[in-house]
Structure formats: C-alpha cells, structure tokens
C-alpha cells in the first residue's frame, strides 16, 4: 500500500541513506533504532512535511513524493504531540473535520465518537496545557484519527509517559490498529516493538539494516548492532497461563516446556525474554532460589564480548554467558550434560 523507495536526505549532522520498505494495509510497522538515527526525519519525509533529496514514495501505486502534505492522507503525531494550546481538546480533535465543511452536529458526533475510542470524554472542554503526558497523547491520537489518514505515523508515542499508562496506551494503539488503521511507529524501545509490531525494520546510522517479523529480528539478528541493541539471546514465543493471584508464580508455556515467571500481565500470547547473564549453569541439580531448572546439553561454546557464550539444548535453545573461569571449572564443552536454571524473576513477559 505504502512504498518507500530509496529515500535519501542529507543533513550536516546525520543522513538517511537509500531507505526502502513497504507497508501493507493494516500493518503495524515499527521502525526500531537508537536515537539520532534519523527516524523522526524519515516520518517527516513520509508525511510530506520535509522533502527528500532523492527517492520516491508511492501510496496505492501513485507517486506522492512531491504531493502537498495536506493532500497525502498520511498524518504524523509528533513526538511532543503539538496540540494547539489556544484550542480546547474538543476543538483540537475537530480541527481536521472543520475544513471539510461538515455540519456542526456531524462534527460533534465524530468528536464524541473519537473521544470515546481514546477514553477522554471527560477532558473535551479542557485546554491542552492542563493535560498530563498520557492524556495529551490520547488527544493527539483522536485528532489524527479525525483526519482519517490512510497511514498513521507515530514518533516515539510512548516516551515520557509513566510505565502503567504506557501499557494502557499500547493497548489503545493495538485497538486502533485492529480497527484497520495502518500504522508506522518509530521507537528506540525493543519492548514496544515486540509488543506492537507485526513487522519491524531496524535502522542504524541512517540505513535500514534488517527487516522482518519480530521473531525473525530477535532470533536471527543480522548484525552485531542488532544483537547488541536488542541485547536478548533467549526469546520465546508462547502463552502466559492464568492465575488467581497476580503476586504468585505464573506459568509460561512454550514448545512443550513450562517456565515459572513473575508477571502482572493478563493471560495470553506473548514473548518471554530471559537475559543470558541470568542463566546459571551447574554440574548437578542444586537447591537454590531458581524456580526453573532443566537438564540440558551444551551444543556450542564460543567467546562473547565479555566471558563465554554457552548455547544449551533443553528442548529449546537457551544461551548463558559465563566467565572463562567457570568454563574451565565446570569443564564446559560441546556435548556435555549440565543443568540450566534461572529465577522466575529473571524472566520478563511481554504481552502481545
């Protein structure tokens, strides 16, 4: 539906080089990259606020590279929302509706509908200056949806928002996407990317260095940068089971294995992340505070940036990073049978 082709733009301090990717209708496309990689600039170019030096943008097969920003139907939510401070929340949301010469009752109806969707009905007559970060992000979303964009662009929409509110907002973004809204979202937060995206592109140094599904990117990082940036070796898709008590241990099911985890999330599909530094290897079953312990076989040993990386097979692959001393002491080598354990609190569940 939206095709970005060889977009380049030079600025004195950074540049975008030959960016190409394709977004299909109803995609939730996340551009993941460290700050300063030109992600915001890329969104400005796609939305028509800034012109590229070269390259083309196609929407439904039409070249829109030099089309006016007003006529593109690709609308950007700026990182700092940019709500109009002199207008009420109602008038902010109504802003894109008014130029279409809609009738007053129609506008009111539409604004109310959008306010309901983003759950801010009680804020309609406030001024933006009095809203919290989460509230203004909801208003900005309602306003952008009022413009009925073919593609919605979000620039770090969840930064500067408290953790709990961030979870709620993620839910809202998912809901908007499931209503059929195509979204491109840029972020530096891999958790955000995992929990929202159906496709991810990783940007480094003004270039896209890998695209694919979240599983693809995280399990098979194509470059050291991605591996380091993402920093997660043990990454499993599965299901968190229900629990009566959110403070108790929960069970996470993946490929026939069950792990104990600590999570306050609702039951359902998601990813489990276990950092390799927290995976303990021992010669025998040990009594410890680790709730997860499995018999496994070493299938690979190689040097990591710090220490050694031990890849084990316990039905699924689990990687551990240990010191050179431990490798010697435990005589870790290919084919050796060992025990692998990690604490329930060392496993992080990210809901889909």
């Amino acid at each position: 539906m939206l095709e970005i082709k060889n977009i380049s733009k030079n600025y004195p301090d950074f540049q975008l080089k030959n960016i190409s990717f394709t977004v299909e209708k109803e995609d939730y496309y996340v551009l993941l990259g460290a700050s300063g990689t030109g992600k915001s600039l890329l969104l400005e170019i796609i939305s028509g606020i800034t012109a590229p030096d070269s390259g083309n943008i196609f929407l439904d097969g039409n070249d829109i590279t030099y089309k006016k920003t007003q006529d593109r139907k690709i609308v950007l939510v700026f990182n700092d929302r940019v709500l109009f401070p002199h207008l009420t929340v109602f008038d902010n949301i109504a802003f894109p509706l008014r130029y279409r010469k809609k009738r007053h009752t129609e506008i009111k109806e539409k604004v109310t509908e959008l306010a309901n969707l983003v759950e801010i009905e009680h804020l309609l007559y406030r001024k933006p200056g009095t809203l919290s970060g989460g509230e203004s992000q909801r208003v900005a979303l309602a306003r952008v949806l009022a413009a009925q964009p073919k593609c919605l662009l979000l620039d770090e929409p969840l930064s500067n928002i408290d953790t709990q509110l961030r979870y709620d907002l993620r839910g809202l973004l998912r809901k908007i996407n499931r209503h059929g809204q195509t979204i491109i979202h840029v972020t530096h937060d891999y958790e955000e990317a995992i929990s929202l995206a159906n496709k991810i592109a990783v940007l480094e140094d003004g270039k896209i260095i890998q695209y694919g599904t979240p599983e693809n990117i995280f399990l098979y990082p194509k470059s050291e940068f991605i591996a380091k940036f993402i920093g997660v070796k043990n990454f499993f898709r599965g299901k968190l089971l229900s629990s009566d008590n959110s403070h108790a241990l929960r069970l996470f099911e993946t490929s026939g294995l069950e792990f104990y985890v600590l999570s306050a999330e609702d039951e359902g599909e998601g990813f489990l992340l276990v950092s390799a530094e927290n995976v303990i290897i021992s010669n025998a079953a040990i009594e410890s505070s680790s709730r997860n312990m499995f018999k496994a076989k070493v299938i690979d040993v190689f040097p990591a940036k710090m220490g050694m990386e031990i890849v084990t097979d316990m039905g699924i692959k689990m990687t551990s990073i240990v010191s050179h001393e431990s490798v010697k002491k435990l005589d870790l080598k290919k084919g050796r049978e060992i025990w692998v354990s990690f604490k329930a609190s060392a496993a992080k569940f990210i809901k889909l």
Partner: protein
Amino acid sequence: MMKNFNTLYLIFAILSGLILLFIIAPLLGMFFLTSGKDIIETVKDTEVTDSIWLTIRTSMLGTLLFSVGVVPLAYVLSRKKFYSRKLIIGILNLPVVIPHTAAGIALLGVLSRDTISGSIAEKLGFSFINSSAGIMLAMAFVSLPYLLTAAIDGFNAVPVRFEKAAMNLGASHFRTFFTITLPLAWRPIFSGLIMMWARGMSEFGAVIIIAYHPMTTPVMIFERFNSYGLQYARPVAIIFIVICLILFIVLRFFSRNKIDARN
C-alpha cells in the same frame, strides 16, 4: 557577603526611586498646577474635544489600515530567512531613529501636490497636505515599526511545528495562518497595535509638517503654548493624557482577559 548584597540593593533602590520620580513628578505637577475650573472649561471647548477625537480616530484608522500590510510583512520576515532580511528590518525601523521633523519633510517630498501621489490624490478630489489623510500617513510612518517589531517577535514565538502539524492535518496554509499562527501570536501583535496607535497619537514633528490644520492635539498643545502660554496648554495636555490612559487601561484589561481564557 550578605551585607554587601543589601548595600547594593539600597543604592539601586535609591537610583530607581529617582528615575520613578523623574517620570511621575512632572505629570503629577501638571495636575496640581491646573485648577479644576480650567479643566472643566477646556472640556467644554469643542475645538479641544474635536481635536482629541480627530487624533484618536486618525491614529486608530491608520493603525488598522496599515496592520493589513504590516502583520503579513512581519510573518514573512519571521518565517523566511532570506539574505536581505536583516537589511529590510533595519530599513523599516529607520523612522524610529531619524528625527521626526526630518521624517515629516521626507514624507512631504512624496505627498505634496507637485508629486505623483499628490496629483493622483488631487484628481480623486482630496489632498494629503493639511488633511486627516496626510496626518494618518505621517502618524503611520513614524509608528509602524512598533507594530512590526512586536508582530515579528510574536510570530517568532510560535513554533513552526504548530503550522506543520496543522497543514499535515489537512489545513491550507491560509487556514493555518488564521486559525493557528495568528491566534497564538495575537498577544504581542495586540500590544504592537496599541503601541502603534499610542505612538501615532502622540506624534508631533512629522504631523505638524504635513498638516498644521486640522489640528491634532499635540499640535494644539504646542500652538496654545506658543500663542497663549503654559497655563492654556496645560489643561489640554491633561485631558489628552487622561483620555489616553483610560483607553489603554481598558484595552489592556480586555486583552488580558482574552489570554487568561487560554488555560
């Protein structure tokens, strides 16, 4: 340390007090030196009231007419960073630094009957010389920089992101200007309008060269002082000052209310 600090403030307070006195003393003195009877008689003098009304009206009309051009000009100078921008701003501010009688002479050079604009006006049945049209131009010539500067500051204070966002949401550039930029820059522009209006009303030098008659109040104060003396000039000055003060206080009050409604 603390003691030094206090001494500093003490000295500065005394100096500030002197400055304040310098402004207030002549004004208050004028009120004390004028009898109520003189003021009442002057208020009844239609020559005086006509003149005050002429001054207020002409300056206001000039401010409003010229704002139609000055505000857009300020917007362009704020948004477009072209090469000669600073030079243009400098030229537009010239009337502030040149002597106003000189400004009047310069203006006369393009408005008198033997010039192109003068002869066009004559064909249309009026003249700039000794007319309220000429007074208006003289007032605008010297007071326009106040509006321009305030409006440029006002537009500079509106982040371009607001305009980008509005246009990206589908608004035309025109609609963006009138619904986003202008309202957000309104406060400084409004004080610029008041400044231009006030400066226009108080103008003497440029006005007296273009038009001795009809007589604006500053010219009348000068004329009465010259022909009859201080005692006759004072009541006119007092009435003019009081009316101007009332107008400004009322306007300030309204503009403040409007802004406070924002948040």
